[in-house]
């Protein structure tokens, strides 16, 4: 109890920000269309997946290019346990997290034991995700190439985590999961193992010479990271009501997951959420611009792929101009103006 109180006291500023952010995001469903709300829900799901990625790649410094592995394991666990064994998706979310954490321990143990670092570790994580994608694509138990369609419960059902009639609840559940994810990250960052992760990121050899076991710190990071991302994947399955191997294990999922924290700020508590917000707004603006352009730009109306080109250009400019993400850019901006 005392440790918990200390933790709360030490991170009171982070907790205040969390309360404020949740309060603001809770207002989103007021006065937006059903479509916009589902975009916002998806943004929260990928923010959560990014929060998980950030634990391994931001805090422990092990760049993962294959977090689709955990996302997909979470999605498939929820879909399989619900459709085959009628297990509530709530339980499925936790089970998926555990499956992903165990997979993370195995994949991490193999990779770290053999001393993979930097680009090589990134390529190995990519290979693990691709192997899962190809395996699930050929495995009849999980629907092989057809995938799994999750049956509708009909209307709203808390036990089967479906909110067809009130998408607001679906949004609030995603928001609650993100809040839990942020809480977990605050706890990890303030904990002793969290400090060890940061030490390993900064200088692995120096950390080891101080008596830290780098392997253990990295394995802890990868299992927590996998768990959080898998919960996001599990909820994504319930959001789409469908999974298949390309959809949840595909390389573009890995990219989508790591894009948010990098745009927001790698290794910061709020980076993934900020990045998700920025990218969703950007994506919607460019998409609607191409769908319904102002009269001077009439020629671009409905041109396939143009929104992606704009997106790519912005991405390249952001990385060259603001290499430490929106939050880092903001911080530098404030420093320069002497605020």
């Amino acid at each position, binding site marked *: 109890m005392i440790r918990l109180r200390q933790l709360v006291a030490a991170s009171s500023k982070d907790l205040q920000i969390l309360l404020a952010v949740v309060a603001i995001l809770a207002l989103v469903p007021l006065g937006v269309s059903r479509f916009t709300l589902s975009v916002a829900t998806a943004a929260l799901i990928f923010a959560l997946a990014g929060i998980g990625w950030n634990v391994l790649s931001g805090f422990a410094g092990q760049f993962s290019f294959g977090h689709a592995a955990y996302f997909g394991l979470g999605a498939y666990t929820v879909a399989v346990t619900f459709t085959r064994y009628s297990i509530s998706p709530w339980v499925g979310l936790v089970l998926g997290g555990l499956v992903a954490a165990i997979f993370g321990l195995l994949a991490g143990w193999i990779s770290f034991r053999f001393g993979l670092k930097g680009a090589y570790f990134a390529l190995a994580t990519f290979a693990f995700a691709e192997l899962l994608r*190809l395996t699930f694509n050929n495995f009849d138990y999980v629907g092989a190439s057809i995938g799994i369609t999750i049956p509708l419960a009909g209307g709203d059902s808390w036990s089967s985590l479906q909110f067809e009639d009130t998408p607001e609840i679906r949004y609030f559940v995603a928001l609650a999961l993100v809040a839990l994810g942020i809480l977990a990250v605050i706890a990890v960052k303030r904990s002793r193992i969290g400090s060890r992760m940061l030490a390993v990121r900064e200088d692995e050899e120096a950390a080891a010479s101080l008596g830290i076991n780098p392997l253990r710190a990295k394995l802890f990071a990868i299992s927590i990271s996998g768990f959080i991302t898998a919960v996001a994947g599990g909820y994504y399955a319930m959001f789409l009501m469908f999974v298949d191997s390309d959809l949840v294990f595909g390389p573009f999922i890995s990219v989508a997951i790591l894009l948010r924290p990098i745009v927001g700020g*790698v290794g910061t508590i709020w980076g993934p959420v900020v990045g998700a917000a920025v990218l969703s707004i950007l994506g919607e603006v460019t998409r609607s611009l191409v769908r319904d352009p102002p009269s001077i730009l009439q020629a671009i109306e409905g041109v396939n792929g143009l929104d992606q080109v704009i997106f790519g250009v912005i991405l390249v400019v952001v*990385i060259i101009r603001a290499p430490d993400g929106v939050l880092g850019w903001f911080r530098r901006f404030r420093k320069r103006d002497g605020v």
Partner: protein
Amino acid sequence: MRGRSRTAAWAGLVVVVAVAVPQSAWWDMNHTVFAQAVVSGLLIGGVYSLVAMGLSLVFGVLDIINFAHGALMTIAIYASYLLFQNYGLDPYLSLFITIPLMFIIGVGIQRFAINPVMDAPVHNQLLLTLGIAIIIENLALVLFTGTPRSIELAYARNEFDLGVVTLDFPLRLFGAVVSLPKLIAFLVALLLAGALYLLIQRTQLGAAIRASAQEPEGAELVGIDVDRIYMITFGVGAACVGAAGSLVLPFLFVSPTAGATFTIIAFVVVVLGGMGSIPGALVGGLVIGLTQELTQLFVPGSTKFLGVFVVFLAVLLFRPEGILGRVRR
């Protein structure tokens, strides 16, 4: 000594397999399919080698994970395609345009996009090249739509009288079909690999590139303009996919993502062969070509990439310096 005895053991194993397999009943039933898999694997493997050499140079010299490599190939594929459709230019002649064109584009990308992030963390570099790939692929989608296109070479099914022998395409080799475009792609890829090897090993420019790869600061001290070498290196890397793009045009569907599939394969080959190693990329490309075709043969119903990724992981874990690379950990 240990290295030599291991090589001998491998050679012995290969000889035993080569002698034993044709004796078996399995061979009697399947040797045509097997021959086809080996021939197809080697032919496409040559193209993989060429693509991977460019990536290997960039990875080895600049230490950049270039995820735009396949997208650069897409540019070359479309350039060749347009030259063929609009001016009737033979894809093999368009090599003389795509190679310099891609060199210039590569130099430009290095100069304006990648040089500014040379000291940035690995995730930023990776994301930057990914952003470039997104731009290129979707620009292709905007300009040419997603409709797959292909071309037909008029002489792909001709007879060729070479004086000594007459070659009738598609050629049959141990029962396996060898198409002319794939054979040309394979041979030209080998030729370019040799040229690139000589460029890196035997010229002054090559020495400067190797110096910049091993010790950038030292290279700077002895008067090498490392930034310029980086630009040239990226340009040469892009020129490799420029050549590959023209070579695959006669047997590949042209689409905005046509080159993207080569990116991953190229990474596998680079890691397999050892980064920065041109002979490694050559051997690695052939091995991966064989692996993908043999996976399909021996693991029915699987996709060809399953075996490729298993090999990839095994190499990453057990021999991250690659089969021909120097140990550097």
